[in-house]
């Protein structure tokens, strides 16, 4: 139980590499804190170095030479502050109190789709937010029953925002398998959540192009050498080749000068080194693939989240095979029709219940004495969700048929008795 009073706030201090949101009035800018890197914001330039080690939410002033200074406490030197007010009182992190509720920071942040409370790690990729609204993301995480200790499959093309949110709700417990199309998974958005390193151990990835092989049981996970050939077979071959290669220059260089010889040897060394690095990388990749495959092949994942620009129907039908029965799945799509297709397909095929196609409406309110009214209605633009729960395929048929026969027999017996 977390009842200690001395809570460590280490995690809420700014460090190098953190993505922070600078705020002045209603203007926001997300930047990464880097050593001695000039940042331009609101026509001012400065360095964020002095922000490191401070708590998020700290207010700064820009001092001479673009270095940050902590804003003086409100109770000290008030007159001084007001003198400066006329000249240059631009602060990076504004005092929330001076804000009117109608133009609250959060309003703007949310219009941009940012999850802004404390100004801490926030996804740095604005464009992806415009489609997936935060209230839709909220539904995804809850409808998907995303929680610590489960095994979740994620397929998303939202630059890692959905992945990061899922990982945050798992808290480093359990595992997340990111399915990815093409060459490799995109995780830029996830990185800016600033997870502790042990979280990354729970994250796996698996390429879509190997899904069929995995399902068929034909996925090749054996060790390979640098050329991608099975190690056991051709290891002798390759070492033979390299031997030949190294012997070649010697026989040909009887007439070439020494410098040329040295360069050739150096090139050879580099080539060997690169081949070695490649081998190590491929082995790493193979291991990762194998560990992800091991998690998938049990076909007992606890949940599925899909949020991509791909047509959701084939993605859903393909990935549902990996999910255990009685587990939730959520599919996000910017448009409705592809989800209607998914719904129809699932109805035909069976194996899913409680299918729901939804979208959410979000309305903000300005709350002021005698001036309270709705401000902003966000509807339709947040995308659509198809959610449901998996159930067992009809394997219990025979057993249950047997059962119902049993019941019939019993009933007959009772009738006989009662009629006697």
């Amino acid at each position, binding site marked *: 139980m977390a009842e200690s009073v001395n809570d460590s*706030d280490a995690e809420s201090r700014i460090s190098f590499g953190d993505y922070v949101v600078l705020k002045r009035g209603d203007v926001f800018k997300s930047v990464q804190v880097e050593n001695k890197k000039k940042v331009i914001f609101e026509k001012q330039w400065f360095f964020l170095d002095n922000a490191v080690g401070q708590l998020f939410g700290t207010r700064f002033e820009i001092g001479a030479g673009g270095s940050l200074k902590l804003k003086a406490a409100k109770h000290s030197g008030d007159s001084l502050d007001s003198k400066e007010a006329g000249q240059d009182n631009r602060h990076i992190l504004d005092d929330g109190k001076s804000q009117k509720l109608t133009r609250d920071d959060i309003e703007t942040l949310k219009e941009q789709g940012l999850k802004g409370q404390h100004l801490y790690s926030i996804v740095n990729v604005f464009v992806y937010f415009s489609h997936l609204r935060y209230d839709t993301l909220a539904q995804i995480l809850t409808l998907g029953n995303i929680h610590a200790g489960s095994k979740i499959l994620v397929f998303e093309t939202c630059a890692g925002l959905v992945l990061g949110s899922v990982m945050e709700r798992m808290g480093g417990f359990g595992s997340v398998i990111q399915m990815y199309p093409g060459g490799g998974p995109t995780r830029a958005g996830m990185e800016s959540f600033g997870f502790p390193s042990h979280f990354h151990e729970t994250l796996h990835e698996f390429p879509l192009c190997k899904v069929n092989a995995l399902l068929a049981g034909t996925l090749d996970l054996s060790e390979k050498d640098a050329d991608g050939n099975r190690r056991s077979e051709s290891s002798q071959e390759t070492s033979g080749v390299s031997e030949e290669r190294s012997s070649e220059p010697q026989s040909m260089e009887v007439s070439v000068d020494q410098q040329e010889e040295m360069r050739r040897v150096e090139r050879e060394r580099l080539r060997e080194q690169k081949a070695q690095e490649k081998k190590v990388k491929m082995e790493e990749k193979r291991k990762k693939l194998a560990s992800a495959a091991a998690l998938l092949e049990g076909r007992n994942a606890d949940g599925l989240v899909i949020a991509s620009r791909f047509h959701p129907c084939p993605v859903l039908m393909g990935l549902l095979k990996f999910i255990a029965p009685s587990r939730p799945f959520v599919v996000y799509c910017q448009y409705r029709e592809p989800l209607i297709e998914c719904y129809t397909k699932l109805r035909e095929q069976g194996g899913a219940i409680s299918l729901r196609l939804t979208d959410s409406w979000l309305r903000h309110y300005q709350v002021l004495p005698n001036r309270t009214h709705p401000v902003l209605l966000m509807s339709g633009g947040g995308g659509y969700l198809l959610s449901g729960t998996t159930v067992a395929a009809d394997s219990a048929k025979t057993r249950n048929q047997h059962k119902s026969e049993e019941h019939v027999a019993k009933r007959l017996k009772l009738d006989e008795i009662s009629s006697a």
Partner: protein
Amino acid sequence: MSFAEYSEIIQEGDVVIIFLGHESMMPIKVQSGAQTQTRYGAIRHSSDLIGQRFGSKVTCSKGGWVYVLHPTPELWTVNLPHRTQILYTTDIANITLMLELKPGSVVCESGTGSGSLSHSIIRTIAPTGHLHTVEFHAQRAEKAMQEFKEHKVSHLVTVRNQDVCKDGFGITGIADAVFLDIPSPWEAITHAKSAMKRKGGRLCSFSPCIEQVQRTCEALLDHGFEEICTLEVLLRVHDVRAINLPLPDFGPEEGSADSSQMASDVSQEVAPNTGNTSVICRTATPPREMAGHTGYLTFATKPQCE
């Protein structure tokens, strides 16, 4: 089984959700030797449930079948016995995200009510967080404690039977987030503030009436809360169905055999047994009435203590 952790096989003592069909479910407590009556017949716990996999199909005594589901807070919300008006998943989802709840979070809640939100919070903060929930109605507090125990989550929650406006949450300086769903939330703001950590935290107040919201926002401002924001979220459920649209008959076209030309102009599935006079469209219609207003959600941030 636990509401905070999945398991594969149904065991004695589990709470499971029986799915009877469209929008029809019921929770039952699994007990050896017991039977549960449904409209499809009886479910015999010992043979039909215990030892079976969650998600299995179960045939009842009359021959009809049902599915047995693993409980989740979302399923619980739509199946729990109401002792008060409850919060539904749409609001719960937004509250969870905007309070930044995650494993390890320490959360204060009042009132516990029927435990709908409580279960969801517990699921989200498990296994390292804790929920301190306050309910001033003695019986409801007792019932909540009982349910948490049955649902195998009592180690993650403390229920206190007291008045949050007078006595607070029973703890100070440890909460990451506070949630209020009480008639007079402005009276609890001081306690909410003291319950939260020095480094700050998030607060949410849920109120059905705008007057309550106004008073709460005022109190939040007075107490130094920032980023105060009030919103309302509504879920719209789309009704997916296949509809039959008849095609017009413009009479035979010059040079073509029959009016089947019409059907090919419309690139849709032709309805069977209609002689090409209508097509099937798969579409989704929004319901005639959207879900009603539940309440306003007011969020705020307590800044770090200097």
